[in-house]
């Protein structure tokens, strides 16, 4: 059959055998690649054919495997063998489908007909005959074909199979003819995750191969990335749609950020981007990027052929002080090397055989020829010689300094090794740079060329040509054009210069020597000689370094070096300090080694005479050298750092013990006028003061801003709220409310947040809180501590302020209740008194109080009830308490006006009642502004005799607050109805608070709990303490008690019905418990706003955030009520 096929097909393509052969090969490849179902179909008639084919293929594989073993002859034979079969395969594959079908039909017909009868014979026959044919054919070919043909065949064969002959057919086309045209597909830029570009290009390739034969192959033609274009890849496709589809499902590709078309004229340049090639030649200076030798200068010695590895020579850093405990055991020593490498790297030092042997022992260093081997490194002439990857080296901006170069040149023994180092490279580099730094007016000299030796002043610079006006004997005044590279700045001894760039930048000094382009000057700062290139210098008149501040620290700061050590900076250098520590030792420290700056401004100590010693006192030593000085800092009341300009050592700073100092100016124990007496009282001394020998000295907040609630107003944390936890210099450590994060931030970026939500600069006077605190403290002192003062600290109290006014004074002893009440809102909570409103109405005291104002002024103060305060059922007290929660924080003029009106009708009191509506409106609630304006208003509004017993107002005011107008005139009755139990009350809402204080939009969402039902036997008290949610309020009769709320009780409570109608007087607002509860405020500025708590409400104030708002606000916890979600 093969024979037949051969004959059948050869004529068809005999015309161009070579081309044909190539085609065949290609087709064959395809067949092999795809597996040929078509082929099987074709030979459906004879299955042996397939088998044989397989055999042949197997043979072929074998042949490939033993290619090396078998001789060329065998190989050729095999190829020929295969060849015999191949044309037949390929050509069959080329037959069109129609023909195949025909053939199939033809062949199947007879097969089906004949097979049943003659199958065995026929097959056998065919098999044999075909084998014979093949054999014959092969022999024939082998014998007859000339070698040339065989070779040709072979070469064709081989080429097709193993490697296409390299033709470089595209290499002759000039690149410009390859420019993209409009017919080419476009390039699309896609953003990808930076660092993932290459992976994504690979993924695209794999994906393209994967889906090649699927229903939807990728339609992109290529994709590429460039290292120099991070974060993007480019895909070649006809449309963005195709790109998008190709990128689907790939991680790290962001097609959503846009698939941008690359303009056709920019396409080529994307592929032409060229990293600046940095050639490395032996002798080049490089720097080492990483590791122990990071930043060290090294010189290239040799480069491997592929340019990947570079042999370097540089000054080693051998640890000559390995830890003592590790000196014996070799294993440990190795470890010590590692430790030393991580902690502090040893200084650069030339390899010295003797030294190393002394430290490490002889057996660790071996010598081969001129080279020492130590710890797997080779050392030659004191240098270490080591291979580095090119990528681990910094080739650009090496800028070797003169110091480094000279160290290299000197070599280990300090003598010049001219042969070692080629200075020309650095000279060249510095000269190039020198051109850039020339300026008109510079004094230069010519150091090479015809005009060598001439010097003059630069007139103009035009690219590389410098025009100078020569100065000198015979050419004076002439203008000369010179190449810029042959001039250099000229300095002469005595010039005062300043270093413009480099390590010594900003140093100034007096030139003492000039050698070629190296200028040596005596630094004004360090009084040491410094050598620099003349290109880095400029003549300057100024003296000294620009600043005494490095980082956050400046000269004469007291800084903490470690747990035990503090010191004073006496000299600042470019990026380090010289510090004199408390033990008198001088240290060179970097800014990062300083843990913090210490503030000793308020520290004091006792001197030798027992007098107080403070910072800035002028003192002298009583023993020792009797040095005089000004106290700069006092540390732990024991060490004093003194400064005396006349002492040259350590910048005039010295440290001594406080006990050995005496004040220069005699200082008695005179109390200066205006001195705060409270400072004399140890008990009252502020923690910041710090007493001599007191244990907790320095513990207290040194900085008043510590603990303040602040908001960040600038920078990335803008808008965040937090609390200052610590300060250091102008930095503050702020604990953010969110995310449990501590950040260090510039104090300038912080604004203090006042309790009413306003923000003021940190350094603005803190009269509100501080004053309040002071006042609070005072009142506690006087009244024996009535309650926790914390809220008093926050809320400046008009009452408190009122207490200081003369008119208050006039009211005799009665301010107490106001002060107490005003300053201790929290006092409410601790008030365990029976309800003054219920009981109070019946007590004579109450009656007296309510009806006659005078008793307050006179009797009230004296009655035990007054003093007993919190524990008595005293209406004043509780009234005062009410005032604190209601009226206490109302600086609003409105409130005081209301009072005024009331006071006018005080005697009867009734007319004043309606005015209380202003109170209940509560606008002023929670607005404890430091203005505290009400007091004057208050006073002004009380010009009547009736108003003289001012104290009366307060209870009255208080009294209004919790009661409603209708009940006010008859206190007794009103209070009788008043069902609030003072027990556990955090908040004193009126009994109609549900109707009055809850805005209508929340009235079906408010959570409440039930109180007071037991006493009235409402529902037999079964509902007492149950919690539930109001679903609605039914007002049966305005102002009547029969206002009832439909309460749905929270499931899971004992004995709770699903719902009940409860008179609203039994309802109390349920406070939020969690940090993210939905709440509203019942009073104050936040009243009626939908908010969420932002912290667990356990203090007097709670941080809340209005829904939809972006800032936090402090709300008074007692005004908050829990809301159900909508």
């Amino acid at each position: 059959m093969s024979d037949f096929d051969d004959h059948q097909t050869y004529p068809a393509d005999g015309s161009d055998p070579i081309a044909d052969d190539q085609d065949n090969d290609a087709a064959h490849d395809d067949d092999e690649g795809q597996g040929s179902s078509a082929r099987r179909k074709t030979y459906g008639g004879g299955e042996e054919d397939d088998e044989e084919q397989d055999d042949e293929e197997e043979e072929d594989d074998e042949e490939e495997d033993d290619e090396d073993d078998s001789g060329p002859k065998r190989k050729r034979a095999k190829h020929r063998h295969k060849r015999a079969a191949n044309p037949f395969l390929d050509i069959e594959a080329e037959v069109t489908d129609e023909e195949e079908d025909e053939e199939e039909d033809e062949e199947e017909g007879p097969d089906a007909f004949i097979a049943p009868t003659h199958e065995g014979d026929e097959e056998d026959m065919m098999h044999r005959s075909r084998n014979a044919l093949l054999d014959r054919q092969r022999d024939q070919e082998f014998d007859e074909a000339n070698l040339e043909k065989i070779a040709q065949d072979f070469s064709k064969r081989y080429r097709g199979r193993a490697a296409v002959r390299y033709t470089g057919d595209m290499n002759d086309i000039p690149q410009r003819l390859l420019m993209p045209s409009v017919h080419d597909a476009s390039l699309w830029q896609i953003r990808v995750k930076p660092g993932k570009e290459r992976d994504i290009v690979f993924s695209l390739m794999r994906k393209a191969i994967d889906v090649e034969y699927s229903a939807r192959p990728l339609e992109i033609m290529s994709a590429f990335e460039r290292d120099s274009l991070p974060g993007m890849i480019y895909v070649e496709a006809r449309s963005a749609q195709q790109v998008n589809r190709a990128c689907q499902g790939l991680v790290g590709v962001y097609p959503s950020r846009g698939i941008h078309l690359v303009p056709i004229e920019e396409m080529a340049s994307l592929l032409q981007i060229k990293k600046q090639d940095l050639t490395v030649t032996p002798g080049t200076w490089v720097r080492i990027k990483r590791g122990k030798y990071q930043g060290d200068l090294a010189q290239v010695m040799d480069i491997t052929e592929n340019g990947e590895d570079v042999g370097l020579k540089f000054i080693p850093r051998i640890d000559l002080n390995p830890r003592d405990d590790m000196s014996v055991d070799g294993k440990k020593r190795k470890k010590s090397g590692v430790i030393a490498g991580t902690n502090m790297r040893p200084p650069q030092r030339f390899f010295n055989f003797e030294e190393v042997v002394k430290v490490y022992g002889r057996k660790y260093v071996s010598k081969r020829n001129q080279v020492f081997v130590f710890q797997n490194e080779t050392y030659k002439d004191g240098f270490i010689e080591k291979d580095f990857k090119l990528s681990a080296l910094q080739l650009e901006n090496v800028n070797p300094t003169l110091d480094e170069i000279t160290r290299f040149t000197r070599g280990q023994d300090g003598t010049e090794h001219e042969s070692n180092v080629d200075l020309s490279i650095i000279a060249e580099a510095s000269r190039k740079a020198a051109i850039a730094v020339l300026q008109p007016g510079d004094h230069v000299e010519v150091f090479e060329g015809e005009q060598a030796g001439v010097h003059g002043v630069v007139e103009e610079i035009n690219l590389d040509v410098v025009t100078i006006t020569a100065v000198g004997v015979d050419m004076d005044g002439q203008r000369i054009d010179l190449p810029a590279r042959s001039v250099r700045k000229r300095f002469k001894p005595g010039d005062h210069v300043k270093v413009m760039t480099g390590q010594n930048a900003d140093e100034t000094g007096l030139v003492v020597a000039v050698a070629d382009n190296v200028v040596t000057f005596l630094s004004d700062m360090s009084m040491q000689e410094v050598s620099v290139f003349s290109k880095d210098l400029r003549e300057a008149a100024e003296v000294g370094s620009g600043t005494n501040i490095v980082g956050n620290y400046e000269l004469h700061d007291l800084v903490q070096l470690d747990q035990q050590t503090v010191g004073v900076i006496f000299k600042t250098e470019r990026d380090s300090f010289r510090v004199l520590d408390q033990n008198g030792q001088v240290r060179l420290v970097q800014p990062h080694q300083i843990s913090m700056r210490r503030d000793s401004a308020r520290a004091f100590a006792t001197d030798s005479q027992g007098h107080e010693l403070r910072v800035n006192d002028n003192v002298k030593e009583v023993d020792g050298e009797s040095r005089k000085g000004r106290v700069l800092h006092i540390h732990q009341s024991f060490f004093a750092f003194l400064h005396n300009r006349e002492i040259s050592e350590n910048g005039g700073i010295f440290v001594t013990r406080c006990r050995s100092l005496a004040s220069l100016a005699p200082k008695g124990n005179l109390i200066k006028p205006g001195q705060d007496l409270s400072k004399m009282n140890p008990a009252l001394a502020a923690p910041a003061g710090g007493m001599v020998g007191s244990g907790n000295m320095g513990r207290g907040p040194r900085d008043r801003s510590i603990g303040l609630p602040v908001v960040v107003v600038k920078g990335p944390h803008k808008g965040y709220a937090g609390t200052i936890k610590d300060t250091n210099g102008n930095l503050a450590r702020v604990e953010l409310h969110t995310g449990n994060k501590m950040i260090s931030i510039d104090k300038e970026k912080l604004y203090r947040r006042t309790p009413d939500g306003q923000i003021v600069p940190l350094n603005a006077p803190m009269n509100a809180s501080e004053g309040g605190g002071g006042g609070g403290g005072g009142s506690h002192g006087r009244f024996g501590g009535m309650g926790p003062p914390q809220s008093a600290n926050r809320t400046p109290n008009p009452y408190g302020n009122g207490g200081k006014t003369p008119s208050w004074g006039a009211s005799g002893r009665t301010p107490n209740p106001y002060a107490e009440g005003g300053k201790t809102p929290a006092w409410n909570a601790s008030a365990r008194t029976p309800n003054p409103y219920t009981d109070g109405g019946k007590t004579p005291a109450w009656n007296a109080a309510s009806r006659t104002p005078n008793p307050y002024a006179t009797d009230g103060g004296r009655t035990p009830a007054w003093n007993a305060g919190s524990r008595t059922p005293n209406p004043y007290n509780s009234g005062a308490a009410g005032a604190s929660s209601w009226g206490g924080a109302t600086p609003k003029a409105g409130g005081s006006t209301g009072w005024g009106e009331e006071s006018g009708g005080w005697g009867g009191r009734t007319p004043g009642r309606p005015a209380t509506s202003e109170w209940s409106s509560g606008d002023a609630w929670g607005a404890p502004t430091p203005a505290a304006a009400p007091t004057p208003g208050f006073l002004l509004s009380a010009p009547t005799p009736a108003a003289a017993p001012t104290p009366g107002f307060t209870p009255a005011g208080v009294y209004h607050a919790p009661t409603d107008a209708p009940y006010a005139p008859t206190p007794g009755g009103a209070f009788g109805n008043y069902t609030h139990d003072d027990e556990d009350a955090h908040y004193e809402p009126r009994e109609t608070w549900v109707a009055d204080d809850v805005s209508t939009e929340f009235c079906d969402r408010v959570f409440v709990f039930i109180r007071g039902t037991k006493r009235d036997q409402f529902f037999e008290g079964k509902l007492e303490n149950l919690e539930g949610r109001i679903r609605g309020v039914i007002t049966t009769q305005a102002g009547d008690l029969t206002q009832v709320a439909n309460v749905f009780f929270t499931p899971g409570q004992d004995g709770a019905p699903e719902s009940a109608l409860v008179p609203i007087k039994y309802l109390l607002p349920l406070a939020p418990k969690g940090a993210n509860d939905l709440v509203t405020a019942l009073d104050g500025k936040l009243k009626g706003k939908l908010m969420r708590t932002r912290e667990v409400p356990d203090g007097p104030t709670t941080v809340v955030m209005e829904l939809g708002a972006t800032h936090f606000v402090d709300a008074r916890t007692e005004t908050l009520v829990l809301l159900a979600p909508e």
Partner: protein
Amino acid sequence: MSAPIPPQARSKQLRACLLCSIVQHPMDFRREGCPNCEEIMQMKGTPDRIAVCTTTYFDGIIAVIDPENSWVARWQRTSKYVRGMYAVRVKGRIPEDVEAELENRGIKYRPRDQTDQD
């Protein structure tokens, strides 16, 4: 026909052929040689040869998916080559013997380091 795609894109080992700029894992170079220019480079099975004919110092990777139709491939002169990953720029020159052979055949050698653009 496509070249083996290296499994790890970030591998530092990947090498690019100095002549055709195809990027492969050195193992693939050893096993199969260069799919495009093996005939002239003769790298198969000889690591030494691979070391001089390929380099790790290349920049930019192109996934050539459809070499015949891709402009990028044409610009890079790889459109007659197999599919695969190619480097945009390869640093270095082919060994001198290969360069001489190219000259013998009258083929212009174009280094892939973009030094000669015309």
